[in-house]
């Protein structure tokens, strides 16, 4: 495959390596560049000012959970408008409401089908 454009960069935040693998394989296969974070704090350290086109984050993670991470992202002027998809085992409406209030753009419940995630990503990724 010849690349004629700079690949869009996506940050995946999840403490589960297997989930990062599945999402990473699907995203890389679709031509995205992937950066990984193992929890909210680790992911914040990856936000160094460089362009991130979309963030996919778990909710329940050690050190810093996904909702706190989402709030920190939205408070950062450089990433305020970066769309965030929450990818979590949580399916309760109250949790979804928390995510929505914190600024998440979509909610996908695990286990997920990579194609479903890719469709949501292509719909939300910023040009």
């Amino acid at each position, binding site marked *: 495959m010849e690349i004629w454009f700079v690949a869009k960069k996506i940050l995946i935040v999840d403490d589960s390596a*297997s989930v990062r693998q599945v999402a990473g394989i699907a995203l890389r296969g679709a031509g995205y560049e992937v950066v990984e974070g193992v929890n909210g704090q680790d992911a914040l350290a990856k936000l160094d000012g460089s362009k991130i086109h979309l963030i996919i984050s778990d909710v329940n993670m050690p050190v810093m959970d996904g909702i706190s991470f989402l709030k920190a992202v939205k408070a950062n002027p450089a990433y305020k408008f970066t769309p965030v998809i929450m990818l979590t085992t949580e399916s309760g409406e109250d949790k979804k409401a928390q995510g929505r209030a914190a600024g998440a753009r*979509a909610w996908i419940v695990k286990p997920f089908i990579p194609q479903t995630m890719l469709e949501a990503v292509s719909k939300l990724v910023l040009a």
Partner: protein
Amino acid sequence: MILRFSKTHDASETVATTPSPYAPALPILAKQVDTARAQMEEAIVALSERFAQIVQRIDSTLTASQSSKQDGDLAAILSTGKADLVAVIGALKEIHEARNTLADEIRGLAEHTEDLKRMAADVEMIAFQTNMLSLNAAIEAAHAGDAGKGFAVVAHEVRSLSRASRETGKRIAETVNSITHTLTSIARTNESVAVRETQAVRDSESRIHEVLDRFTNISGQLANSAEELRADSALIQGEIGQSLVHLQFQDRVGQILGHVSSTLQELPPLMERTATEACAAQFLETMARTYTTSEQHRNHQAAADVSPAPSQAVTFF
């Protein structure tokens, strides 16, 4: 995940009591659960990394085989090779044609030698007649006596010339015979070479076509097997992708086990106190609030345990 149940209770609600003799078992159980969780996570991570590597390798192989366009190159080389070899056959045929023209010219030359033979015979005939004429002239010179003496000398010279002419005629005939013989021999040799050459050109042509056909077949087979390989690789990639989806159970199971372990660790200090009903209810309520999967909620409500199906729906906000 640490639940901190003890913090949610008011000290006035609980009364210190003697520790339960079973309490020490709970942290041990929590450790066992943690070990199981860690081992499972380690194994699944290793497995998924291997799978990811396999997928990547297949992917790069597929990309390489598609971008190199080997089939196209092979077809182009074959086509150029065909054109070159057809040109070679053409050149051989041209040489053959030139040899045929040469043979015709040699045959034409042989025909001219017949004329030369006739001309040589004519020279001999003229020499003979001139000789006869000189004899007659000598006789007439003798009849003339002394007056014919000078004429007799001329007649004698004419006779010598006619003899010389006759010799020349003979030599011409001999030379023409020799040339004819050589030309016939050349023509014969040329014809046999031409026959061998025709056969050689025909053999070369058929061999070249055979080789080209063989190459065409092999390149076709190569293209087919490359296509099959690509299809199989894509299939394997898809299967591995599906397996990776199923490996996501580790994340859910890990979260459930993590919750069980934290809860078990929280229990011993609580068991050292006599809890009120309200306190126990609060414990259960806190436990339910900290669940992260739908299975935990269903189990809590004593509902039937059903493994969750992969999610297809996305909730957009």
